[in-house]
Each structure stands twice: as structure tokens, then as C-alpha cells.
């Protein structure tokens, strides 16, 4: 372990901007992408569920 304090760790020997800029961008984009993919999936599922409910409703109205 080469860090004596948390401040030293975050300073990264003067390269803080570059190191945290790199790791930060990776973290940000690699959190955003799965979020967007999951949202896309849940959006399709929602619309499919709505469609199905609409179908069932229509069926009920026809039979009643």
C-alpha cells in the first residue's frame, strides 16, 4: 500500500484529473448503458402488458 492518507489517494500524485477523469468516465458510461438497456426492456414489456390488457378488455366486452 503506497497511500498514507485518503487525500494522497485522491490526489493521485498530481494526476488526479487524468486518472479520475478516466475511471470516472468509465464508471459513468458503464452505469448509464445498462440503465438505458434495462429501461428499453421494461418499456417494451410495459407496452406489451398494456396491449394484452387491452385485448382482454375487448374480449370481455364482446362476450358480455
Amino acid at each position: 500500500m503506497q497511500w498514507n492518507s485518503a487525500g494522497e489517494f485522491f490526489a493521485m500524485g498530481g494526476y488526479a484529473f487524468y486518472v479520475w477523469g478516466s475511471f470516472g468516465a468509465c464508471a459513468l458510461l458503464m452505469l448509464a448503458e445498462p440503465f438505458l438497456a434495462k429501461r428499453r426492456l421494461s418499456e417494451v414489456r410495459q407496452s406489451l402488458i398494456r396491449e394484452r390488457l387491452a385485448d382482454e378488455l375487448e374480449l370481455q366486452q364482446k362476450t358480455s
Partner: protein
Amino acid sequence: MNQSIIQWFKFGSPQAFYPLAGRMIPWFWAAAAAFGIAGLWISFFVAPTDAQQGEGYRIIFVHVPASWMSMFIYLVMAFWAGLGLALNTRLSGMMAQSLAPTGALMAALSLWTGALWGKPMWGAWWVWDARLTSELILFFLYLGFMALQAAIDDPRRADKAGAILALVGVVNIPIIYFSVKWWNTLHQGSTINLTKAPSMAHTMLWGMLLMALCFWMYSIAVALTRVRAIILERERHTDWVKHAVE
């Protein structure tokens, strides 16, 4: 033997793959998290300070895995695309389509971290180094693939056209890389040389490998999530989809 081949073909149908992917995704997330924690631990707490580059070199722990993945994903994408073209399976095209954004993301991350590494090391955000330039062209290839698929309304045609483009790209990538390298050596005799990596300590290599595994597992997890969405979008008028969502 025959039985197992039939099993594989069964999972080749979107209907069978959709629930299978759903079950696999958490495992890949878990693997990505485990490799990521171990990799980050090594990159920040185990790997020693570099003699020449100080702490700035720690960027390679994300830069190199992102570059590797961007190239690897293009190959995998072209593989699925080619398979779809040869066997005319629906799922292959969907896989290729779901991989492209992740590959483009990796290429973008590689460029971004490369620029952030270049500034303190060479004093410039961007140098026309052979690797950086090839990575930029690879990013363009991803963008072209996604733009072509987005522009074609019929998904089957989009798959096939994308497949041809991906295969043409795969043939061209070595030519492009070679030509860029040639161009680079012709134009700058000295100053910048990325190819000579400083003799790498074992811990650094381990850190990079673990981070690469993390990125790999992440890519699979995210591509599987996206392919599930694509399956539902494309097959929304079939009966099984109506029963698959509760």
C-alpha cells in the same frame, strides 16, 4: 451427441433464448462485479507507482481493457452477423445488433482514456499514433454499422445488410491497422512511441487482466439485456411474446 446439437439449436430460437438470457444475466453481473472489485483493488492499492509515469499510468487499467473489448466485440459481432447470413437464424442478427452499441461505447472509452493518458505523458490530448488512429477508425466503423441498421426499417434486411458491412469491416480492419502503422512510421521518426510499453510488472498485468475480465462480463450482461429488449420488440406480434410477459 445428436441430442446436444438439437439442444443448441433450440436455444437458437428467440423464444427459447429470451428466458435463458434472463436467467444468465444476474450471473454475468455478479462475475463483472467480482472481477471489477479485484481489478480495482489491484489497480489502486497493489500495483506500485510507476518509476517514469508516476500515478498517471493507472489509466491503463481501464484504457487497455476498453481497447481490447472494442476490438474483440467487433469480431464477435461479425461472427454473429456472418452466422446469421449463413444459417439464416433470427437470433444471430439480434445479437449482432445488441453488441454494436456496447462495442462503440468501449471504443469511445478507449479514445477518451487514451486522450487523458496522452495529455500528461506526451503533452497533447491527441497524437496521431497508429493505435489511437486505428481505434478512431474502429469507432467510425461501429457508428456506420449502427447508422445503417437504424436507417433500414425492415429488421431482416437491416440484419443482412449490417452483416455484410460487418464482414467487409472485419476484412478491412487488418488492412486499415497495417496501413495506419505504415503511415505512422513514415511520418514521425521519433518523439512518440506507444508501442514500447515499459517492462510490465506482474501485478500490473494481473490488474489489467482482471479489469479486462470485468469489462468482458459487463459487455455480455449488457448485450444480453439489450438482446432481450430487441427480441420482444421484433417478435411482439407472436403468441409466445404475449405469454412471456406477465
